């Protein structure tokens, strides 16, 4: 829990700094927008975390986000290129496809004994490939479909803005469900045991393959759900949607204390890690600095969005470096305390 606490403090400090630079950071519009993006990435990160806790990895979730959006657009969009089916048809088919992809990849990994990395790396490509083929490499707009409301509406509105947007509500549901699965069920315990020591889990009679399969299915399903929200949020479906999201999800999990070695992680950590990722992302556009130029005119400095990759990467590295350093320091302090006590 210590690591989670440290990261939470770091997120709070960054928020305070951003608010200091730009008071709009805590403005109603920005906060609600931030919560929505945290929700969409968070759903993805929770699914990825389950897989990482078993000691595996799922690189295909970004592609599933893309394919889900494309399927819904193709089947249910009222505009050019869409097939005009009711929206629930598109959503159901998209979720079913996500589930089948999870099942397929999970079976390859558990029954055929293939490496999760290579199976889902293949997935990252062929799944997006199918999406591109379906839409011929073009972009389909959702036009005036009510589907657009999904990501932008919600419960308890102030003016035009919902306090609890549907993506954020979805995230809360995913957190509750994920927290329950991970920390209160036998399934969750098995995930940790398998990630901690797969052989010992097998020798203890755990249904190792079934549990792992479950993790990959859940990961693909959360990607599907997240994909629905993303599609509704950007109001169209194109071949580049969700590009690299698998890595954001993994980064969010790792920043939140989920160990890539497996067997470690908490749902609270995933929430904090996701918040960190999205606050940074949002901060790059919100950050500003007023200064007087040589002629004495008031100017404002902004970071462009082209800074995003650099800053995000730096933050991920800083997070793990800082974590390791505190780890070293704590150990040193403990040793010293022991020595003092013994002497």
């Amino acid at each position, binding site marked *: 829990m210590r690591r989670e606490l440290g990261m939470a403090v770091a997120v709070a400090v960054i928020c305070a700094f951003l608010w200091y630079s730009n008071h709009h950071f805590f403005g109603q519009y920005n906060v609600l927008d931030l919560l929505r993006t945290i929700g969409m990435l968070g759903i993805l990160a929770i699914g990825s975390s389950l897989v990482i806790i078993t000691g595996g990895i799922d690189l295909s979730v970004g592609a599933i986000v893309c394919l889900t959006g494309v399927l819904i657009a193709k089947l249910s969009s009222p505009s050019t290129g869409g097939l005009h089916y009711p929206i629930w048809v598109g959503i159901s088919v998209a979720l079913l496809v996500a589930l089948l992809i999870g099942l397929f990849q999970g079976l390859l990994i558990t029954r055929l004994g293939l490496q999760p990395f290579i199976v889902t790396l293949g997935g990252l490509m062929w799944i997006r490939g199918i999406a591109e083929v379906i839409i011929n490499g073009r972009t389909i707009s959702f036009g005036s479909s009510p589907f657009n409301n999904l990501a932008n509406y919600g419960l308890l509105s102030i003016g035009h803005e919902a306090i609890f947007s549907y993506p954020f509500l979805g995230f809360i549901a995913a957190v509750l469900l994920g927290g329950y699965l991970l*920390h*209160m*069920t*036998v399934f*969750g*315990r*098995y995930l*940790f*045991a398998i990630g*901690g*020591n797969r*052989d*010992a*889990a*097998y*020798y*203890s*009679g*755990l*249904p190792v393959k079934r549990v792992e399969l479950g993790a990959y299915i859940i990961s693909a399903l959360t990607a599907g759900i997240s994909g629905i929200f993303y599609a509704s949020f950007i109001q169209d479906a194109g071949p580049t949607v969700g590009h690299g999201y698998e890595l954001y999800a993994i980064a969010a999990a790792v920043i939140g204390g989920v160990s890539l070695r497996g*067997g*470690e992680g908490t749902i609270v950590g995933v929430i904090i890690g996701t918040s960190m990722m999205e606050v940074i992302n949002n901060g790059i556009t919100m950050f500003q600095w007023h200064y007087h130029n040589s002629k004495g005119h008031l100017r404002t400095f902004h970071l462009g969005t082209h800074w995003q990759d650099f800053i995000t990467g730096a933050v991920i590295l800083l997070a793990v470096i800082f974590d390791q350093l505190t780890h070293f320091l704590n150990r040193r302090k*403990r*040793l010293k305390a*022991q*020595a003092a006590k*013994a002497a």
Partner: protein
Amino acid sequence: MRGITKRYPGVVALSDVSLDVRRGEVLAVMGENGAGKSTLMKILSGAVMPDAGVIEVDGKPVVLNSITDATALGIALVHQELMLAGNLDIAANIFLGAEESRFGMLDKAAMHRDSGKWLDRVGLRISTRTLAGTLTAGQMQMVEIAKALSHNARILILDEPTSSLSHSESEKLFDIIGELKAQGVSIIYISHRMEEVQRLADSVSVLRDGKNVGHMVRAEATKEKIVSMMVGRELNNWYPPRRSFKGNTIALKVENLQVVGTRSPVSFDLWQGEILGFAGLVGAGRTELVETIFGITPPIAGHVELGDKRFTPTSPRVAIKRGIYLAPEDRKRNGLVLGMSVTKNISLPDIGNYLPRWMLRSGTELRVAQRQIDQLKIKTPTPRQLVGMLSGGTQQKVVLGKWLAMKPKVLILDEPTRGVDVGAKAEIYRQIRELADAGISIIFVSSEMEEILGMADRVVIMRDRKIAGIYPRDQVSQEIIAARMIGE
């Protein structure tokens, strides 16, 4: 070594320990697990720095900041867990980190030539091009020693060198130790095995709780004396008193079970409440047989009958459902999740059966674990302690605990006392006997003949993956077992 002191969080690993080794002497260092032997050896080999004390080599004080420093002074440690790179050949392993080169390129010819010389010196007659991964444990040990000698080792530390060696491999090792001794190499020999120490050592130092408790020359070093020093009390009876066992019902019938990689099927019966000892050399197929019964690798043919029900053990799940449990040979790798707590390890195989199924009850879990902790006297500060932080004997008890919480019918114990200190051993023996008295049938696999004779009601001797004989306890002796194991 003079007045060596080392503190770790929570413990003083060594306090004011001194040790003398003369040139060409074999010094045995004995002590229970956790007595400080390993720490002392790590300090001597430069892997760990002491908090206080001095080390003198040839009468001159030295500072060992790193393993490199120690190597330069001719001190080499051969670890208990062998550390060779399996994907490299013998020559590459011997010269690992000290490769010979010409014009910046590896001089493989020279390395093969020179490593061949070192192999000769340890009496290993195989090609230096053999991949280390294909060697037997005994051969690896020899390569490790050859590697140490190639660094001009004058002080050789052997940490439990025979723990994974067969009888004949151990014999060979003893011969080589004799030769090295004659060549003036000093040897520090760490072992739990009394017979070896009595046979090899010129003198014996005993550690207990990080302190020197005794030093004696071979003539004085009787088994009783050493053991009483190690545990600090007279231990005249390691094993529970003999019992006369007469089986009434067959608990487990193994019929024509053919293990993967063997030609001949195996059959035997296990009576209810019996302790059936499995003796044999390393590689005789004992672990493979019991792992097949437990379903780790399903058999090619044959089946197992438990009670009246016949089944083929296709996975551990199948075996566990019937009540057959295995405490594996390598408990760290196969028996425990080291990063999980004692409680979670104990509940692991059974937690799927706790009610209600959809909600973990930490209260129930803790109660079950606490019962095992009390019953088995598992020495853990709290039930939430991570298993990886516990000593070998305590870990073994956690493995036992997780199965005993589930009411076993047949309990397979594969080398249950390997790496377990003397005090904990006696405790584990007593508990095994209690389980058998309570009607649990036990398959007891061990490489220590004495242990088999001390515990088993009947003895199965395995050789070349076949059963070479089954004897009631009172018709068998060390000599008979040894003879059958090697095939007379």
